[in-house]
């Protein structure tokens, strides 16, 4: 073999030497290769003379220069991730080539757990998106990048708050307890979804602020790719954490000639929609109309309290990155990001500073390779006092919606106006100071060693460390906070009059070590085998402590210093530690590139599991048949056709640690200890068994590509906090509930190159999901959730989980309008709740249109969801006519009806509405400058992006795509809208430059 090679080389050298004099007969071709969509320069593109080995690569500006024989007529231009093109050499010897990205096509490489795969070879259902497919505009958390873009992945924001969390459901809702989030793996490090910042409320009466996104520490601009492992055959490699799907986030790496990239964005955000409330004169008229004494409650002012708390917010973000590679095998990329995002509710803001270094060093001709990814991030949130579960008094939004519009904001003496019971929202904004500061470091270091030609070893060590401090201070002059509270059995004075200061420290850390061996063998007949085996150990440690104090020494001002408060609850806190130890293996075998099989198994041991179930094993199997590679393939119709089948088991262990042990908690107030919950040594993971089938196809010469997937996901041993059969040592225990949670669905993804002109192109991407959820074998058990809050609504709830129905089915009283006296008609009785529809959409879809014309490009993205219900808790709590009697503002549509003033706000279908919507959620207009002659710029692009531009819906609230956390006893709710942070409409102007 080697001898032959040497001979070959010698032969060529000789030829070269001999042929040297004939060089005059060659010609020099120059040109430039750009991306067909955004016209950016493509670096490192291979240019080869057809039928020869003569070739070169494009440089940092995408340009190339190549000397070819005079006889050469055609160049082959190829680049990873792009369609290879053959171009004929023109007489001018200058050729400009545009390549079309195959990002959505089947040649793309996708990141799967512990490796990458060509989409063509992927046996499971994996969706992958790059920056081109991401949502644009102001992005505070990476999950917003993919919202609506992937079939089967539903991202529902819980509110419009910067950095707020979203429910991310991959192929339906898997569980009936909190923690339905997928597993996030960032550059190979699985991160914890545990809360990393204080919740704000240490005492019950303040309500708790909504959860934060686990990903807000990442700079979205650093992300190169997000892969979603949707089915069990793909996610089984993550075993007991794979049941909710896995999201793999890969950050940008350095490349030769990458250079410097800079981007700057400025965003203007406004409320997309506000409630139509009565103004002062309408209010007085309405109060008179209901028979109350308007003169007694008219304080003479005319204030729009929505205006007082909402604002037009200006945000900015900057990213600077530079990267490159040298000939010694060193590649690097460093980036810095700064975001200053201001929310549309006054005060609320998120400031993020991130720095990232990704580097790798290849040694000894790629035998040994080191790689390092490191992120340091600082996030500072400023919170407005908005909570999920405020009662009758409301949090900021509730207070603003209901406050009597004739109330002045301030008294003549400059103090805040207060009527004795209703909180003043402007005072809430200014007399509460609530900020946090989160530092997070995420790094991983890996080494790959090629042991033989086919076998390589890789070891990685990852460390994730986050520390945060949330400081909340309440002004003693803040009126209307008169409830004394209770912290671990010790009472603490009401805020009004005594003020309060609290510090919440949260530290999370996790370390992971992994060792893998990969055997990779290819045969000449295109058969291939890849076997992966690995061991992983990950340890998680969480520390939290709280310092709550009252009785300020300065009764007239808000001092933001904990030492200013004299009465303190002893500092209390808890720490948890849990470990996960795993062995895993995967084999991919491809027979003649026709039949592909992937077998996966992972065994997880978790310290969380009960003594009787320390280890769990999750197997999966998937096959793919590439029909196109058969002799009988219908090649005249299809350009590509393959069939996939998969089956697998995955687990979920997202329950708090120590649930298999008996744990006591000490209470200060009465010096007692109480058992928090009862141990369950049989406690184990939740299991999800999934099978599915899919077809991948390409027709019309590859212009139309698509995938159709069917899936059936059966969750059992559902993790559930079981309220005990009392008498009991504790309120309950975690158990694996008998019953099945079944998600069945159909996904369709289509990409269509509608027009492929020289100057004009039009690409369409469409995805849709039909989903059906049913709870089965649940016996007689009925689990209530979906708490409804507000005046006169104590203890109210709206949803049930019950056998034979979808999760989150609403169960409320039937309401049939008002009778002649203005009282509500409840045909089944006021206290008889009946089953209604579910909050889970049956159908979701996303449609992207990309147009490019010359240097311009326009993209807009629509998304829609239908077949679900939303409960308008905001209206139930505040918007019916009786509220006028108590001097509260209402919306214009209810103020002048015949509704009786004594009609109550019973939870009923009156406030249950269809949530169907169509949204123009993203539109971008971009212009790319032609920089052929520029010495400084490599690329320059300007763009204008609008988010949430248009919403078509019959829903009467602000936005049906909402999910205020209204859980009861840890059982999550869906589709309830309660005075949450409203969604913004934004316009972003952005500049991207490359140097």
């Amino acid at each position, binding site marked *: 073999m080697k001898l032959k090679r040497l001979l070959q080389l010698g032969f060529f050298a000789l030829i070269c030497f001999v042929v040297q004099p004939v060089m005059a007969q060659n010609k020099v071709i120059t040109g430039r290769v750009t991306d067909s969509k955004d016209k950016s320069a493509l670096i490192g593109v291979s240019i080869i003379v057809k039928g020869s080995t003569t070739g070169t690569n494009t440089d940092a500006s995408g340009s190339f220069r190549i000397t070819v024989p005079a006889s050469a007529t055609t160049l082959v231009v190829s680049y990873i991730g792009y369609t290879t093109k053959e171009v004929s050499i023109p007489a001018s010897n200058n050729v400009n080539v545009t390549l079309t990205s195959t990002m959505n096509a089947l040649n793309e490489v996708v990141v799967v757990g512990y490796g990458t795969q060509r989409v063509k070879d992927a046996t499971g259902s994996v969706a992958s998106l790059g920056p081109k497919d991401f949502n644009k505009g102001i992005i505070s958390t990476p999950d917003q990048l993919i919202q609506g873009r992937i079939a089967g992945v539903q991202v529902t924001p819980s509110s419009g708050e910067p950095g707020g969390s979203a429910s991310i459901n991959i192929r339906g809702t898997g569980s009936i307890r909190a923690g339905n989030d997928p597993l996030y793996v960032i550059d190979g490090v699985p991160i914890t979804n545990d809360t990393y910042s204080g919740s704000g409320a240490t005492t019950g009466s303040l309500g708790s602020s909504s959860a934060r996104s686990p990903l807000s520490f990442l700079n979205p601009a650093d992300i190169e790719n997000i892969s979603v492992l949707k089915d069990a055959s793909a996610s089984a490699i993550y075993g007991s954490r794979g049941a909710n799907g896995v999201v793999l986030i890969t950050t940008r790496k350095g490349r030769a000639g990458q250079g410097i990239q800079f981007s700057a964005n400025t965003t203007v955000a406004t409320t997309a929609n506000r409630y139509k409330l009565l103004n002062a004169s309408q209010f007085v008229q309405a109060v008179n109309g209901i028979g109350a*004494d308007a*003169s007694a*409650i008219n304080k003479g002012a005319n204030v729009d309290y929505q205006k007082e708390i909402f604002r037009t917010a200006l945000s900015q973000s900057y990213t600077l990155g530079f990267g490159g590679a040298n000939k010694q095998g060193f590649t690097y990329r460093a980036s810095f990001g700064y975001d200053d995002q201001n929310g549309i509710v006054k005060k609320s803001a998120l400031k993020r500073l991130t720095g990232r270094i990704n580097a790798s060093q290849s040694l000894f001709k790629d035998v040994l390779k080191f790689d390092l990814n490191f992120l340091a991030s600082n996030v500072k949130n400023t919170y407005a006092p908005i909570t999920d579960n405020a009662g009758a008094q409301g949090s900021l939004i509730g207070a603003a919606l209901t406050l009597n519009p004739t109330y002045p904001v301030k008294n003549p003496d400059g103090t805040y106006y207060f009527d*004795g*019971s209703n909180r003043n929202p402007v005072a809430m904004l200014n007399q509460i100071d609530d900020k946090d500061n989160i530092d997070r470091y995420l790094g991983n270091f890996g*080494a790959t060693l090629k042991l033989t030609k086919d076998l390589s070893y890789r070891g990685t060590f990852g460390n994730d460390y986050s520390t945060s401090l949330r400081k909340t201070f309440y002004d003693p002059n803040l009126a209307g906070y008169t409830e004394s509270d209770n912290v*671990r*059995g010790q*009472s603490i*004075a*009401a805020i009004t009059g005594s003020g309060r200061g609290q510090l919440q420290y949260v530290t999370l850390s996790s370390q992971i*070590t992994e*060792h893998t061996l990969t055997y990779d063998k290819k045969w000449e007949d295109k058969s291939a085998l890849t076997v992966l085996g690995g061991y992983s*150990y990950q*340890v998680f440690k969480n520390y939290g*402590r709280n310092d709550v104090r009252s009785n300020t020494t300065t009764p007239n001002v808000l001092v933001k210093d904990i030492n200013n408060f004299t009465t303190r609850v002893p500092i209390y806190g*808890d*720490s948890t530690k*849990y470990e996960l*130890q795993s062995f895993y293996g995967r084999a991919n075998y491809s027979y003649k590139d026709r039949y592909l099989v992937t077998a996966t198994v992972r065994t997880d*041991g*978790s*310290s969380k599991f009960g003594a009787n179930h320390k280890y769990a094993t999750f197997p999966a199997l998937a096959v793919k048949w590439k029909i196109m590679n058969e002799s009988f393939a219908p090649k005249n119709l299809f350009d590509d056709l393959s069939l996939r089948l998969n089956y697998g088991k995955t687990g979920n262990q997202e329950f708090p640690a*120590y649930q298999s042990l008996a*744990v*006591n908690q*000490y209470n200060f107030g*009465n*010096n*007692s200890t*109480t*058992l928090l919950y*009862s141990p369950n*040594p049989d406690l184990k993971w939740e299991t999800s068994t999934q099978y599915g089938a899919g077809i991948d196809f390409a027709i019309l010469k590859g212009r139309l590509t698509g995938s159709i997937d069917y899936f059936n996901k059966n969750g059992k041993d559902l993790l559930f906090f*079981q*309220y*005990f*059969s*009392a*008498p*009991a*040592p*504790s309120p309950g225990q975690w158990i694996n509930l008998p019953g099945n949670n079944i998600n069945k669905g159909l996904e369709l993804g289509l990409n269509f190159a509608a027009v492929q002109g020289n100057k004009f192109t039009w690409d369409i991407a469409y995805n849709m999901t039909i989903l059906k959820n049913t709870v089965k074998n649940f016996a*007689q058990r009925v689990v*209530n959730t979906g708490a409804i809050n507000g*005046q*006169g609504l*104590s*203890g*109210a*709830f709206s949803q049930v989980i019950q056998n034979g129905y979808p999760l989150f089915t609403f169960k409320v009283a039937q309401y049939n309008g008002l009778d002649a006296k203005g009282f509500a008609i409840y045909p089944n009785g006021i*206290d008889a709740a009946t089953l209604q529809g579910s909050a889970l959409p049956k159908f979701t879809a996303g449609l992207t249109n990309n147009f490019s014309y010359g240097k311009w490009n326009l993209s807009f993205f629509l998304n829609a969801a239908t077949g679900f219900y939303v409960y308008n808790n905001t209206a139930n709590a505040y918007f*019916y006519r009786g509220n006028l*009697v*108590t*001097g509260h503002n209402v919306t214009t549509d209810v103020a002048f009806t015949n509704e009786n003033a*004594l*009609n*109550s706000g*019973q939870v009923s279908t009156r406030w249950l509405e269809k949530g169907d919507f169509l949204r123009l959620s993203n539109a971008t207009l971009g212009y790319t400058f032609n920089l052929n002659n520029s010495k400084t710029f490599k690329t320059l692009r300007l763009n204008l992006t609008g988010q949430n531009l248009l919403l078509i819906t019959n829903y009467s609230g602000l936005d049906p795509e909402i999910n205020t956390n209204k859980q009861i006893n840890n059982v999550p709710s869906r589709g309830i809208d309660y005075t949450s942070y409203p969604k913004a409409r934004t316009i972003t102007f952005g500049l991207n430059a490359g140097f």
Partner: protein
Amino acid sequence: MKNLTSKIGMIAMAGLVFTATSCTKLNEELYGSKSVSTGGAGSASDLNGVYAQLNGQTNQANTYALQEHPTDEMMGPTRGTDWGDFGVWRKLHTHTWDAFHQQVSDTWDELNTGVYRATQVINTSGVSTQNKAEASFLRAYFMFQVVDLYGKAPFRDPSASSDANPIVYNRSDATDFIIKDLEYADTNLGTAAVAGHASKAAADALLAKVYLNKAVYKASAVGGPFTFVADDMNKAIVYANKVIAAGYQLTGPGKYFDNFSWNNSTLSQEIILGLVNTSSNAPANAHNRWRMVMHYNQSPSGWNGFTTLADFYKTFESKDERIGGSYPGLTNLNGLTTGFLLGQQYGPGHVALTQRNGSPLIFTPNVDLNYSTEAQGIRVIKYFPQPKADGSVNDDYATNTYVLLRYSDVLLMKAEAIMRGGTDPNGQTALAIVNNIRTTRGASELTALDAKALLAERGRELYWEGWRRNDQIRFGTFNDPVDQRPSASDKSRTVYPIPQRAVDSNPNLTQNAGY
């Protein structure tokens, strides 16, 4: 050269990282304020935990609501936007609750948790006799409430494995169990009563209560008919006499409301068992008792909730001091009166108060359960806070002792036991006992006493103290129609359903008949 050393360094470092890991045993460790339980400790702190469970009795919801709202002396009307509360109050008053009713569920948990925590203390090896006796009393108190409300009582042995389901005592067996606990407590508790702690007298008073109700708990059909046996009645009299001998006294004429005042712990000689509150720590805060009735614009501001029924109010003679009125140190400063609030209400400085819509705050007798105005319904003030000199009130830490067992109740129980066939060794008659109370309270003497009159007297003496449902069931009037519940309810309503979540989690529990 420099390059080479750095390369070697990197390799060495990598080697270190990758070899420094080994297999783990996956043990869990705990830090902070949490600790792994090693079983009940029987220490004072655990007994405190059992007492802490009693604080729930002062809540306006749960045990108190279940014992009062279905009766003829209390209701919680929905007032426009207020107090709809998902129908919890309406369902209680109209006897239409079901096994999912929030308070039916929560009360079950609260009481049975008390039973369990007490059992943990009792079963601890080496527990002191005093602690064991106090815990026995507490267990009996909680289980008495369970049996009274739900008709059966689950029991979990703390040493049983965690997957063992609690056994379930039927109503009769549970009653015997309670009596045994109380007898132990009675024998072993000290005679000196410590405020806030169980005493001999408390055990005696509760024993009298259990024997008086034994016919109800042992009846073959729920809701009766009941056969009161002379033996049980005599037992009730014996235990009542033990309480009387312990030196309690009726609070003197004109002083009925001293029993509930902010300093009732010193003014009242009637408190057999009370939950103690101080101005710095009020775990059993009595402020719920006035907040739940007082209008928003009264001082202190209340929640404008519950009322009594007009028919109940009519059972009082006007000279009966228990109907309420001015209270020195309260009314003169703050405007609030005691007892039944009817008509125009006043605030500090005798300012006539208004409703939120500006019209005068005049409480009126008639109430509509579903659609009441702010001012409908007669409010009841038994407990009340201490105003400051300017009439204002800070009731964050109300100092009233919350009364669980009161002396006049014991006297009335004795009278009832005599009326139901028991004999007092001291020769007192039921009528004499009742009239003694009536004259002390400023009411006229009765000439004869029958069941109806005695029930009415119990109502007048003990209204809104959490006994009305128990009394009405024993006297057979519980299912009778009242103003806002026009037709009689089924006898099955004399016990609550077992909460569905308890049935779901314990196969030994069967649902009560009729649910």
